[in-house]
């Protein structure tokens, strides 16, 4: 079975530019979450989407936005890139986003490595 797929795998951007990262969840999973992982640190929560609605947002500036499509895939957009945005961006999916999701682990993709120069 295909796991969570993310594209692109690597990306190099210049300060001030905008970037869009893409994620396809595991088949049957309706919830997608985005995380940022800086080198040497654990992942930090950015967003969760379930049934195309935002269910949660972490402590990130408004330059970060996301959306979920009818097929449950998702995009993460980052505007006005800063050097500090350089990180591994991880997408995770889970079966549900409602009350039953408390028992559902997150399954992660291999991420998009973003480098801002």
């Amino acid at each position, binding site marked *: 079975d295909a796991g969570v797929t993310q594209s692109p795998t690597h990306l190099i951007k210049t300060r001030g530019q905008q970037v869009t990262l893409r994620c396809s969840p595991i088949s049957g999973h309706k919830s997608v979450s985005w995380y940022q992982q800086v080198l040497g640190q654990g992942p930090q929560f950015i*967003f969760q989407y379930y049934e195309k609605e935002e269910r949660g947002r972490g402590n990130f500036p408004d330059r970060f936005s996301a959306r979920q499509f009818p097929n449950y895939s998702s995009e993460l957009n980052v505007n006005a890139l800063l050097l500090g945005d350089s990180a591994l961006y991880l997408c995770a999916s889970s079966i549900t986003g*409602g009350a039953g*999701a408390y028992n559902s682990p997150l399954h992660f993709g291999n991420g998009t490595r973003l480098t801002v120069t």
Partner: protein
Amino acid sequence: EDQVTQSPEALRLQEGESSSLNCSYTVSGLRGLFWYRQDPGKGPEFLFTLYSAGEEKEKERLKATLTKKESFLHITAPKPEDSATYLCAVREYGSSNTGKLIFGQGTTLQVKP
């Protein structure tokens, strides 16, 4: 403030030398504690979920345990292929935001042959 702290930051073992990794957490209410393994350049791979104090889960050479304040990941007779970063994460009770896990900084394990 909710937080998760893992120790040690790095651990070097000889093949066959058993040890334990620690995850201490402070949350208003624990809904679940998760262990993940992360290889270089890869995303975290799910290992275990623990829900209540006293619970234990096992998988091959790994055994995870949970108390009210911490979790341990015991590695018995490790092999070089067990080398990876092990991440601990918690999900808070009462939050409707089920996609949010609070991660520790990880323990990087190196097992030498």
